[in-house]
């Protein structure tokens, strides 16, 4: 199954290969080795690094504040931190641009993408903090280390792998994003790829540029283990830990988080609501419900399928770790920075040549989601699955359980919340996805995102607003679920201990 997942995720690469081959290597080189390409490359790389750095800073701070401290209102802060995930970055970009004239360029793109992707870091770091042992920090404090030094020397090394993993998601998201950067007029590589299709109808030039994004992804994938640092071993039995009392810093920290929530959630929401009142165009209720139903079906199906494949890949990598399986795991990430339109076109190309029956069916849409979002699912599941003690597998096997049964009765119950979190993350991304849905859906099927696209393309903002608001509301459900699952890993750990004792 993991092999199927890998083969599927390679479809875009096959397509890029075919296009580049057709184009000829010389033309590819002249197309890509222009001064302009390097400028765009620099823009993309700088934006990606800036967004990733900001996400680490903001996401980690939110996670630390809500998990480790006793600051008042931290459960509310936790929800506020995850909520921006529910807003598609193109909607946020539109909302900001409508509210603030002149909101464009690098910093605008940086802000919108940081808002949209900091929750990835927040969720990953929260999960890591919940699992890591606060006692080490207490010991460090008692040995006379200051608060900052405790953070730098104890807490940070413990959360660094998670922070980097989360930042990886936000970096790849930034690399592949088209909606926000185009609305905010910041020229990146992705924008050049879209322009190649839109203005010159040049599929091969677009493919050459997309191949470079794959190359950057490889660099990031190679650098990632090094950035992650060593996994700090923690005592797997988590005791009830005491929360840090912040004192005078408490109100300041709360204020910082609230200001960020105001910028990231309140501002765009106000702008969306304002859309409702500035126009005469109106959304049709019947269409609204049909689109809602379709969006929810796609999101559920995408989440379930991604969870199944995610478990397969994670179990393979965690339980049968070898050079081959690690390579398999990395392969799935290769196309994660390739823009949606390229993934969609590659599926148009591949399916029409291999399985024309699949073309323009919902099955192909789900396959596209699998390619686009499987890495998100794996990122959320791998650690929880790794947490399930291998000893239990062996016990189960010695008692005569088959491997599938072991998976069902041992690994899944323990890693349940993590798996649910992965599925929720995929459902969330599916709800927001636009370019692949637009190109691959069955003719006549509309989702909230495609309707939203349709209304804004004729500037009927008032008619678009209900779709945007509904989309944010619906996406809020998996966002909330995700947050809850991640923070509940604490209780899950207690379950593991219980199971261990029982055995």
């Amino acid at each position, binding site marked *: 199954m993991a092999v*199927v997942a890998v083969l599927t995720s390679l479809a875009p690469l096959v397509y890029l290969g075919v296009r580049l081959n057709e184009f000829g290597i010389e033309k590819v080189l002249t197309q890509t080795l222009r001064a302009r390409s390097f400028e765009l490359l620099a823009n993309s790389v700088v934006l990606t690094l800036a967004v990733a750095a900001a996400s680490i800073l903001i996401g980690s701070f939110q996670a630390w504040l809500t998990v480790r401290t006793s600051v008042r209102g931290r459960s509310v802060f936790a929800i506020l931190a995850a909520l921006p995930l529910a807003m598609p970055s193109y909607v946020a970009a539109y909302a900001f641009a409508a509210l603030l004239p002149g909101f464009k360029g690098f910093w605008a793109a940086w802000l919108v993408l940081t808002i949209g992707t900091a929750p990835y870091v927040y969720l990953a770091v929260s999960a890591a903090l919940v699992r890591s042992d606060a006692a080490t920090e207490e010991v460090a404090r008692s040995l006379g280390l200051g608060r900052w030094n405790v953070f730098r020397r104890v807490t940070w090394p413990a959360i660094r792998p998670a922070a980097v993993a989360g930042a990886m998601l936000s970096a790849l998201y930034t690399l592949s994003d088209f909606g926000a950067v185009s609305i905010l007029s910041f020229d990146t590589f992705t924008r050049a790829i879209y322009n190649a299709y839109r203005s010159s*109808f040049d599929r091969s030039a677009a493919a050459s540029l997309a191949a470079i994004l794959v190359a950057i992804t490889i660099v990031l994938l190679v650098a990632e283990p090094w950035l992650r640092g060593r996994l700090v071993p923690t005592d797997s039995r988590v005791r009830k830990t005491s929360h840090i009392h912040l004192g005078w810093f408490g109100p300041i920290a709360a204020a910082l988080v609230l200001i960020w929530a105001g910028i990231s959630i309140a501002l765009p929401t106000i702008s969306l609501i304002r859309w409702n009142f500035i*126009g005469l165009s109106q959304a049709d209720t019947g269409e609204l419900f049909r689109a809602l139903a379709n969006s929810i079906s796609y999101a559920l199906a995408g989440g379930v399928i991604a969870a199944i494949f995610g478990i397969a890949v994670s179990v393979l990598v965690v339980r049968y770790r070898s050079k081959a399986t690690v390579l398999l795991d990395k392969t799935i990430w290769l196309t994660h920075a390739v823009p949606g339109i390229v993934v969609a076109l590659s599926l*148009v190309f591949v399916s029409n040549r291999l399985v024309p029956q699949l073309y323009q069916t*919902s099955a192909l849409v789900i396959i596209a989601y699998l390619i686009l979002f499987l890495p998100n699912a794996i990122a959320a599941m791998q650690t929880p699955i790794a947490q399930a003690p291998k000893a239990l597998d062996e016990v189960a096997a010695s008692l005569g359980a088959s491997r599938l049964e072991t998976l069902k009765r041992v690994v899944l119950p323990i890693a349940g919340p993590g798996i649910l979190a992965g599925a929720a993350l995929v459902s969330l991304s599916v709800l927001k996805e636009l370019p692949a849905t637009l190109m691959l859906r069955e003719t006549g099927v509309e989702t909230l995102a495609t309707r939203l696209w349709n209304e804004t393309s004729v500037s009927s903002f008032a008619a678009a607003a209900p779709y945007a608001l509904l989309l944010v509301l619906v996406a809020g459900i998996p966002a909330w679920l995700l947050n809850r699952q991640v923070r509940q890993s604490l209780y899950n750990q207690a379950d593991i201990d219980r199971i261990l004792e029982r055995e």
Partner: protein
Amino acid sequence: MNNTLKRGLKIGAALIATITAATALTGCAKETEPTPTEQSITIYSGRSEDLIAPLLEQFTDETGIQIEVRYAGSAELAAQILEEGSNVQADVFFSQDAGALGALTEAGVFKTLSSDITDLVEAKYRATDNTWVGVSGRSRVFSYNPDLVAAADIPQSVFDLADSAWKGKIGIAPSNASFQSFVTAMRVIEGEAATTAWLTALKENAVIYEKNGQILEAIEAGEISAGLINHYYWYERAAEVGEENMKSKMAWFEAGDVGNLVNVAGAGVLTEKPEAATFVKWLLGQTAQTFFVEKTAEYSLIGLPQRTGLPALASIESPEIDLSALAPLAETLELIRNAGLTD
């Protein structure tokens, strides 16, 4: 070994079951479901659903031919048709602009249209080899706020906007396809040097926007005095806020000026189905042409009178240019970028 095989089969079966289940789960609610006995065609439409859906309903009412339609951007649909290869799903491609049609003509995927269709439209609004035909026209206009621009100050030519008197007063959308087609026309007609000079002057004078609609909003709000847009944006906004609330007016440059470029939305046929040709011909009939004039304020290409307030299509005297030649825009994009208008 046998065990491994069994397990493989089991996993395979589970896989197929889940995908089938997922597909059944997403037995998505479609808007129309044609019964297989009826004649039906599939249209890929780069024109938006809000505008076109009511028109397509009328077509089905009049002819009994059912329609399935996919809406997306014209360029994306063109790319999709090209990647579909020999398994083309669309019978008709209805494009927002001539450029996308030209790209498909070049790839040789269109069927040639019969002369009873192409003869309905003037030669400059269709493909030279009759593979596509324009169905409605839109003109580039000089949009202005009458509080800020006196009637006497309306420029004669788009080249007048290079004058420093317009500094900070004129809005353009250099990353928008309609502006880029216009610059391509300028490049073809006036040459590269003149175009570069104009673009460089505009870099000094112009306020940059992403979309035509934003330019119009800024003119309405008095943030800028004037801008270059397509004429129908005025009517689109008037439909949204009410015509009586519109502040801005439209003007045209002198006859033949490249600033008056008239571009078309058009259609081409991809399969031998007779219903596909019927549809394209119907688009050039009374019902559809009246619809374009009344609903989208575009120009009829079979000579129906335009909306009140607009000059006649013939009187605009847009520059002579092969509209499908507006497709290869790479050089234009380079010029616009080199002038510093897009970053």
